[in-house]
């Protein structure tokens, strides 16, 4: 499958170089590490000013039902945020009164299946990846969130900024009391 996709990209001229592929993979891993260590200040620096961060809520529907559950932005979504809106959420953690985050939650983001392709904009790249976000808080409170992401990353100097992210969580009922975790 990978071969086919790679060939397809080569045919379309959207195949990314080895170096670019690794540079973006390393960027995703760094992002994951920042989130694991609650380093939200540095994470916010990885977000472009024109960021759109979307995580739709997915209902269980019959196949014949053509309701667009993923890209229709007028439907219910866990996140449908601009950068200022994300920053607003993050500012809760800086108040010092987010009681439920103290003692701290432990996180691991596992990012895998990274695919990189070129886009019509020379400085922007589409990156597909899968995430397994694990968190453990209190004594035995644990959650596993699994899904895929389709990102656009923009090259800015030597680094990259996240311009678009659509994260599709595979839950119907969120099997948790909240989502105090970014993926």
């Amino acid at each position, binding site marked *: 499958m990978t071969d086919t996709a790679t060939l397809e990209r080569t045919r379309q001229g959207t195949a990314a170089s*080895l*170096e670019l592929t*690794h*540079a973006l993979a*390393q*960027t*995703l*891993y*760094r992002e*994951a*590490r920042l989130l*694991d260590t609650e380093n939200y200040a*540095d994470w916010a620096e990885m977000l472009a000013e024109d960021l759109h961060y979307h995580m739709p809520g997915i209902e269980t529907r019959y196949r014949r039902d053509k309701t667009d559950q993923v890209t229709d932005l007028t439907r219910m979504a866990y996140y449908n945020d601009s950068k200022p809106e994300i920053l607003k959420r993050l500012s809760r953690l800086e108040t010092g009164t987010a009681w439920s985050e*103290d*003692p*701290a939650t*432990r*996180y*691991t*983001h*596992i*990012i*895998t299946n990274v695919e990189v392709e070129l886009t019509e904009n020379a400085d922007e790249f589409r990156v597909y990846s899968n995430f*397994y976000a*694990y*968190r*453990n808080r*209190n*004594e*035995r409170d*644990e959650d*596993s969130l699994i899904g895929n992401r389709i990102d656009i990353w923009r090259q800015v100097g*030597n*680094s990259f900024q996240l311009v678009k992210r659509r994260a599709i969580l595979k839950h119907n009922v969120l099997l948790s009391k909240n989502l105090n975790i970014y993926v």
Partner: protein
Amino acid sequence: MLDRPLSPPPVEVIVAVTQALHCEARLLDNEDFDGWLAMLDEDICYRMELKSRRFRADRSPPLPVGPGVIFNEDLGRLKLRVDRLKSGFVWAEDPPNFIRRAISNVEVVARPAENEVRVHSVLIMHRNRIDGTTRVLTAARTDLWRGEGQAWLLVARDIVLDHSVLPDSNLNAFF
């Protein structure tokens, strides 16, 4: 620790270390402990500290003799653990538990020397246990790997386990 991706990325090193990590995981999954020991530098420092849940603003001092460890191993102690596993008397591992390690986020975070890299990675350990239950443990690791000719040797590993109460009845496993 350098906290930016190296630019340009040292592609060859990333690929080589990633291969070493995958190889290491495979050896452990297959219980090829001698093969695994051969990947370790003779000065290996292999650690997993104990952690407790504390309030962020807690004012109590550190514990007098330190927090204690789950692993604080040099090569000798790792060999000792391997000897036990190979002794034939470890009934808890007979029949074997099925362990699969998934390694991801292999990030080269620093290159202190031409032949040394500091590597951050995360691990999911899926253990299908003798009693039929499955336990999933996750952890983050920060390693120091040293290139020696064609081979890469593990020099140091710090492991952070994401569980405050170990959800399993033993840790007969290496991370």
